């Protein structure tokens, strides 16, 4: 019935009594962001009266703009695993959805390692799984996504620089490709999420950031594949996805330097080799 706090000398993360994320503090840059994070799912459209277009391999078309929360409302059975180098908080949102929030002693980011799948579909509904962070950052309708890890593109909800935006798909119309990072900021603080692969994502309201991490759909989208995006995976019960998001919270003016450096280290991480030979060479 009380908060759980895990921290290093640099970063402090607080979880509320249900085990959901509550706030993050960067003691170096003296920035605190109140933030709630959970996983949600959009019901993939099977086509409706407006359009027969179903959600599928080529098309993201949720049948409603409100994703369903995958938090059971009571507890994520949070568990702390603490050591000299790494401190972790293990969360279970669903039997098929876990997350480990990890702090490294000498690093200035928070690592969210998620394991999603096999996505259940016995209810006959296709599911498009997102992770969503709702913060107290006053970002209004502006957010930034990268272009192949280089230029950061300024995005604005329901608006396009290059053509008149028609609001046919309130969610999908605002999703953008993210190759390495998405961030929101106000004049004081910036909230950056570094991905470990290309994902779709957006900011659909001020202070909020969402990224799609896995999908399982039951209808073909009519674009030529001729089968639904329903991957059964190696074990036949459904593909599982495991991945990481590294989250940075910084004062806005310093944020770019920090995410540029981390982006390089993620994209070109050291190669790791092993050798059984331990003769006297180093």
């Amino acid at each position, binding site marked *: 019935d009380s908060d759980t706090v895990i921290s290093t000398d640099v970063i402090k993360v607080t979880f509320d009594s249900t085990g959901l994320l509550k706030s993050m503090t960067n003691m170096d840059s003296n920035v605190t962001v109140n933030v709630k994070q959970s996983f949600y799912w959009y019901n993939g459209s099977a086509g409706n009266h407006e359009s027969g277009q179903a959600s599928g391999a080529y098309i993201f078309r949720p049948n409603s703009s409100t994703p369903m929360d995958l938090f059971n409302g009571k507890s994520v059975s949070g568990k702390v*695993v603490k050591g000299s*180098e790494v401190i972790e908080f*293990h969360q279970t949102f669903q039997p098929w959805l876990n997350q480990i929030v990890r702090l490294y002693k000498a690093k200035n980011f928070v690592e969210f390692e998620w394991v999603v799948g096999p996505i259940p579909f016995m209810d006959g509904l296709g599911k498009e799984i997102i992770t969503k962070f709702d913060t107290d950052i006053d970002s209004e309708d502006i957010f930034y996504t990268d272009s192949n890890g280089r230029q950061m593109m300024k995005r604005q909800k329901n608006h396009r620089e290059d053509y008149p935006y028609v609001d046919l798909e309130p969610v999908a119309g605002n999703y953008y490709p993210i190759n390495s990072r998405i961030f929101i900021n106000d004049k004081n603080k910036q909230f950056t999420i570094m991905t470990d692969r290309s994902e779709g994502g957006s900011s659909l309201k001020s202070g909020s950031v969402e990224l799609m991490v896995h999908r399982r759909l039951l209808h073909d989208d009519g674009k030529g594949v001729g089968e639904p995006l329903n991957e059964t995976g190696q074990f036949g019960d459904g593909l599982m996805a495991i991945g990481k998001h590294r989250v940075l919270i910084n004062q806005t003016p310093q944020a770019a330097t920090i995410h540029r450096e981390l982006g390089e280290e993620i994209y070109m*991480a050291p190669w790791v*080799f*092993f050798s059984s030979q331990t003769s006297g060479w180093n």
Partner: protein
Amino acid sequence: EAEVETLKEYMGVSQHHDSITGTAKQHVNDDYTKRLHIGNEKCQKLVGLAVGQLMAKNSSTEGPKTQFCNYLNISMCPATENADSFAVILYNPIGRNVSTYVKIPVNGASYHVAGPDGSSVTNQVQAVSDAVQRVRRDRGSAKNDLFFFAHVPALGFATYQVTSAKQALKRVRPQALSNNVKAVPAPA
């Protein structure tokens, strides 16, 4: 050249948008993946040889036989799961020094890690998480993960020697034990 050619060819085939995004039929996607894996395997073997040669102390000695583990992210690596001692070699492709955490699947409960200069490196051993066990299913046998912090020079290598504490203990000289000197366990 032949080893690299395979990956080059399959990377060429995979320029198709379906391969990049996995939006073709399932069996077509599986075929793209299989070809890339075949090319990847060949290149890993080649890179492993190159790393070995680069690390040989001089032309007469042979460098270490090195190997990759492709499933480190789900705590699977035959080279470390069943070994009491092994070397971890890191190559940094960035033009500046990098410090990074290494997570390695092991079966022991306590290890001694020596850095490139032979000094002890603090490390942490903890159980493989339920989440990763769920992905791994019945593959891999590691019960624990070993974490340590590594520093790798710009465009360079760093070698860390990992020895399980029980193995390290065996290295205490036998006569020391006969004098009833209490074996001091390797620093955690």
